């Protein structure tokens, strides 16, 4: 600093020297992360295991049918006994809102928990690199040695095995994804007999190639350059957000071990770079928070093990907030943080909306459309006739017999649908109905009347729809 002040014209090239080790890996060099055990490694396995639901889910049965099925051709979502039709799709919107806000809420409290422990990109990459490190060496040095080794039967068979395993996982991922949208067992059968639909093959192809390329080759590049969430995180953090962070005050100035012991004139960091070696995205946490950090905590495990070995207290790298690191202050209580409160409020609204939706899920959907071309017609005996389209959707699993009636308008009679109508499950039957009323019974040009749809076989199901009746002025 003092040197720079002395110099009247500082050399601009110093800027380059300062960042000479600033390194952007745009996929040119492969990150080989050393795998170490520890608390956060265990947590990561735990988080990853959530994805077992994805693999098991489609095979669960309920009442002889697939328990959870996104039935796109029939435009319905089956969940156990419940069938959700497009009319109830707002519940899906609220569910998505819930998870989107949950992501924001968790991020504002504890950083990119989703990225580090649950994201499919992280999880699949971790499984793929697990296979790779087992076969080709689990440190960058061993991996380099393997890469530079002359071709041998062992090397070729290891590489082949790696890609075979990768493709097998990718294929399984593809089939599993497709299985959520069609009968899972039938799908396997169709794939093996080569009779699956074109859509199924396309889904399988896209997910297999996608998984293979994204988890096998692009890895952290996806987090760096493709994922929008990685770039959004900055606005979700605040000074109370806890993140894996390097305690620079304690660690700096860093210095290597002297004669096998920590250099007492330096900070706690012995500059062993193990935290960098274990990082799945290849960043150096000691440079502070950065977009490449998926907050998986692998560097915490690594640093703690080094601290143990050098007889220093753990926590040089730890989950800590900005306040904790720079002001030695405890993070504010959750209920005092506006961000957390607002997110919780939205979460509650979304959740109660979905709860309300499920509680009031109706078995039918009844709508009456008053025809406007023409709004009314005068008949030869002078009576006024209005025309309606009645639409009844059967959301149950059994056919229902429906009989229609009207009420609420004196003297009005219903014509055109005298007999009851059978409506198959999941189907809508639009019917034309005519309502007539003698003109002396009609007092104003606009009256109200109620259409009633009674289910003959189930007297407890009776739905109403209020509509209008129009006449001459």
């Amino acid at each position, binding site marked *: 600093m003092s040197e720079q002040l002395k110099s009247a014209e500082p050399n601009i090239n110093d800027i380059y020297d300062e960042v000479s080790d600033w390194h952007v890996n745009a996929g040119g060099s492969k990150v080989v992360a050393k795998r170490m055990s520890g608390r956060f490694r265990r947590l990561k396995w735990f988080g990853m295991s959530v994805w077992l639901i994805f693999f098991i889910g489609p095979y669960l049965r309920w009442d002889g049918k697939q328990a959870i099925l996104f039935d796109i051709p029939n435009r319905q979502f089956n969940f156990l006994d419940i069938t959700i039709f497009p009319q109830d799709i707002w519940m899906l919107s609220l569910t998505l809102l819930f998870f989107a806000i949950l992501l924001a809420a968790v991020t504002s409290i504890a950083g990119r928990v989703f990225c580090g422990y649950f994201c499919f990109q992280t999880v699949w990459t971790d499984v793929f690199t697990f296979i790779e490190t087992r076969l080709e060496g689990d440190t960058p040095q061993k991996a380099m040695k393997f890469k530079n080794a002359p071709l041998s039967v062992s090397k070729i068979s290891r590489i082949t095995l790696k890609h075979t395993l990768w493709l097998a996982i990718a294929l399984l991922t593809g089939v599993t994804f497709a299985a959520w949208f069609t009968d899972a067992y039938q799908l396997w059968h169709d794939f093996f007999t080569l009779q699956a639909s074109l859509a199924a093959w396309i889904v399988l192809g896209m997910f297999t190639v996608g998984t293979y390329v994204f988890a096998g080759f692009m890895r952290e590049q996806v987090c760096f350059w493709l994922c929008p969430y990685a770039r959004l995180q900055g606005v979700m953090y605040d000074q109370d957000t806890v993140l894996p962070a390097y305690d620079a005050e304690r660690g700096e100035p860093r210095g290597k071990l002297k004669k096998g012991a920590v250099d007492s004139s330096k900070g706690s960091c012995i500059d062993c770079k193990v935290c960098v070696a274990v990082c799945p995205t290849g960043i150096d946490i000691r440079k502070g928070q950065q977009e490449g950090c998926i907050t998986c905590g692998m560097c915490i495990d690594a640093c703690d093990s080094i601290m143990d070995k050098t007889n220093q207290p753990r926590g040089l790298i730890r989950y800590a907030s900005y306040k904790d690191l720079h002001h030695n202050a405890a993070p504010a209580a959750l209920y005092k943080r506006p961000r957390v409160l607002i997110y919780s409020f939205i979460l509650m609204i979304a959740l109660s909306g979905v709860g309300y939706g499920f509680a009031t899920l109706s078995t039918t959907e009844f709508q009456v459309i008053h025809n406007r071309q*023409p709004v009314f017609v005068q008949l*030869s005996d002078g009576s006024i006739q209005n025309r309606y389209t009645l639409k009844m959707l059967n959301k149950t699993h059994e056919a229902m017999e429906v009989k229609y009636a009207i009420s609420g308008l004196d003297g009005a009679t219903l014509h055109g649908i005298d007999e009851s*109508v059978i409506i198959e499950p999941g189907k809508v039957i639009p019917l034309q109905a005519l309502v007539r009323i003698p003109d002396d019974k009609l007092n104003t040009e606009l009256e109200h009347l109620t259409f009633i749809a009674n289910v003959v076989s189930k007297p407890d199901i009776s739905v109403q729809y209020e509509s209008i009746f129009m006449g001459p002025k």
Partner: protein
Amino acid sequence: MADNNKNPHDCPDTGHEWDGIRELTNPPPRWWTIALYLSGLLVLVYFILYPSLPLVTGNTKGVLGWTQINEYKEDMEKIEAKRAPFEDRIEAMSAAEVLEDDELLRYAVGSSKVLYGDNCAACHGVGGYPQPGSGYPILADDDWLYGGTVEKIIETLAKGRQGMMPAHAELLSEAEVDELVQFVVNNSNGEATEAQWKLYNEKGCVACHGADAKGIQQLGSANLADKVWRFSGEPDEIRHTILHGVNAANDPQTRIAVMPAWNEKLAVRLEAEEYGDDPEEYYEGDETERLSETEIKKLAIYVHQLGGGE
């Protein structure tokens, strides 16, 4: 990239230098280059597979032989294939039988909406209610000039209709016309007087409109005893109809009421069948068929249900 060095100190350059700024030769990232070449390859493949080069006599056809019109035709074929079972059944059944079959009736009504819009709505209006004052008959009410059974509607559609009423401007005195206008207005409410009825009979109105003034469907004459008006219920308009008639020759102010024939061949056949004759003897060879028999059948069903049917 290994060869992608951000530090310009030890970076190769082109040798060009302006004011101390050197032009470096850092290559773009390899994935980017690969993507560029792949997209170029895609263009080439597309070029070969699809119509591309416009030449003097037309464009290159492409290996796939794809055209927009063919894609449209293929889609139409799919729709036709879905409709075929219904259409075949409607073709094989009589209109009355279709009316009895709920599913088929729904199909016929649903699929005739476009047919009606294309061919009928221009005059009769969407929903069978023409523009007020336009003089076209309302199809959405229960008053049928030529009969409202589905068979009669088929006949009307097939052979077309022409209204006829002589102009009375020179046949009646002004006072008589006034009285007849009053008769028509009153009779619509069932309040016509003896004297008015007498005039109605004397002046020959009865010949076409019938002894009860309810019209005669064989002639297509209007029912004067109900609340539905063929043209208008306003006294001035009624007077106009009486004075100038309908389709009356040599009266430029006469009302026009013409419905074109939509399938003359069918009309001829129906007539022959009515007399128990062989239609082949009736055909003159120049009968037009603007709509097919099945289309007429579907339209008749559609029109039949508009006002609730007869």
